[in-house]
């Protein structure tokens, strides 16, 4: 803020000092903390996503013919498809909590950068998705008898990158869809086409890791994941304030 603006703010004698207004990081933390506190109290979205993930896994498992497709070929696809759809459940709720009683108005009236609202929501969504993954990934290993022993760290890294991409895009579309009458339909319709590169890259990288292929084979897919994250985290952060214009 220019000095002159700050001086005028002080002279006018507001109840708060403009120099103490929360910066981007502080406001991001406040929004994320608030969203996680709400989820911790209700646990509805987390348990819904978790139950969905486990039920999905079971359905895939019972539909699977092990004599036709090897577990090592099927498991990566199942894992990331389940992960994507269960993540959507959390993303759906992200801006839903702001709609009830028009809490979004109070959030937008607060003297914080609009980008902080997006980043705070995305950070909470990331932890939400990561929480579901912590249970879903071992469950996939268990169902499909896939050994994760020496690749679990690499798999965790892929999961982090995939989760980043999904929440970056999904949080933006959740904000856009929430004010529409067909929000529950619109969010998947908008998001899923953008999730394709993430699911593809994550599944391909995972299958190469599980098959014990050379690392060099996984790098091109990993670069796609990294590139997607970089582009979409930046682009969605910049685009978010424009989604709020009425």
């Amino acid at each position, binding site marked *: 803020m220019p000095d002159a603006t700050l001086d005028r703010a002080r002279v006018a004698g507001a109840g708060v000092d403009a120099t103490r207004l929360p910066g981007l990081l502080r406001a991001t933390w406040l929004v994320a903390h608030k969203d996680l506190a709400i989820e911790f109290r*209700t646990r509805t979205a987390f348990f819904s996503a978790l139950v969905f993930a486990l039920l999905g896994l079971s359905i895939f498992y019972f539909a699977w013919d092990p004599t036709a497709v090897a577990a090592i070929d099927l498991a990566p696809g199942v894992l990331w498809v389940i992960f994507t759809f269960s993540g959507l459940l959390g993303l759906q709720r992200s801006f839903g909590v702001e709609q009830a009683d028009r809490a979004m108005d109070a959030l937008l009236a607060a003297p914080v950068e*609009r980008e902080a609202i997006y980043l705070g929501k995305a950070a909470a969504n990331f932890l939400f998705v990561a929480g579901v993954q912590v249970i879903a990934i071992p469950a996939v290993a268990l169902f499909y008898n896939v050994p994760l022993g020496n690749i679990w760290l690499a798999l965790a890294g892929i999961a982090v990158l995939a989760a980043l991409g999904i929440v970056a895009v999904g949080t933006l579309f959740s904000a856009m869809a929430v004010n529409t009458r067909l929000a529950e339909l619109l969010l998947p319709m908008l998001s899923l086409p953008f999730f394709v590169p993430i699911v593809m890259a994550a599944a391909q990288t995972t299958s190469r890791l599980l098959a014990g292929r050379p690392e060099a084979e996984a790098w091109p897919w990993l670069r796609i994941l990294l590139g997607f994250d970089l582009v979409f985290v930046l682009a969605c952060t910049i685009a978010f304030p424009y989604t709020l214009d009425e």
Partner: protein
Amino acid sequence: MEHGSELPVVEAEGLVRAFGGRRAVDGVSLTLRGGECLALFGPNGAGKTTVLRLLAGLLAPSAGSCLVGGVSLRADGGRAARSRVGLISHASMLYSALSARENVEFAANMYGVRRPVDAALRALQAMRVADRADSPVRALSRGLQQRVSIARAIVHEPQLLLCDEPYTGLDEAGSAALTEALGERRAHGAALLLVTHNLSEGLAVATHAAIMRRGRFVRFEERAQVDGASYASAYRELVTADA
């Protein structure tokens, strides 16, 4: 008034807001100084709430300008100007899963209030709801929720309070607490814009009164110049004409 009374708290000049081809607000200008209260009346769809949302920084004007405490709502993304505005509406704007205290503390933190825990408690005490501070908002009655919502709006001691039908859902004690809280804010130099359909309620606290119709002020006068009975009949004529 403590300080800053010589500067208008809010100065809006030629505010216009169009949605598509329709002008919901069409050239509204107003100036309010510390301690003043404008009661804004008008039929549904007159543009009252849109004026409020423009002054709160929730909507960008299609044309015109607005300064709050001398700071433009367009400067620095409107942060400095928004920091001195409090917004009260008939919707509670609260998170039902969080407690009353958590809701108000969250607002205090978002406005950078010093010692947010103490400030939140003070605001809840002012609205006579401190005894339910740790109850989840969803467990409170509509009236108590509205009191918590008002505590949320005044926790940062705003210089401009924008109230859209704030008495909705309040019982007698809640109404008294609200009137007292608004009076206290005005005594400390805050200006108040009160949107209401209730003429007697609005005129009881106002220093100025205005009637909006089709996005414009069709009447704007000092309260002292307003005769309650003739004002009510003029208002009824306007509302009937738009019905």
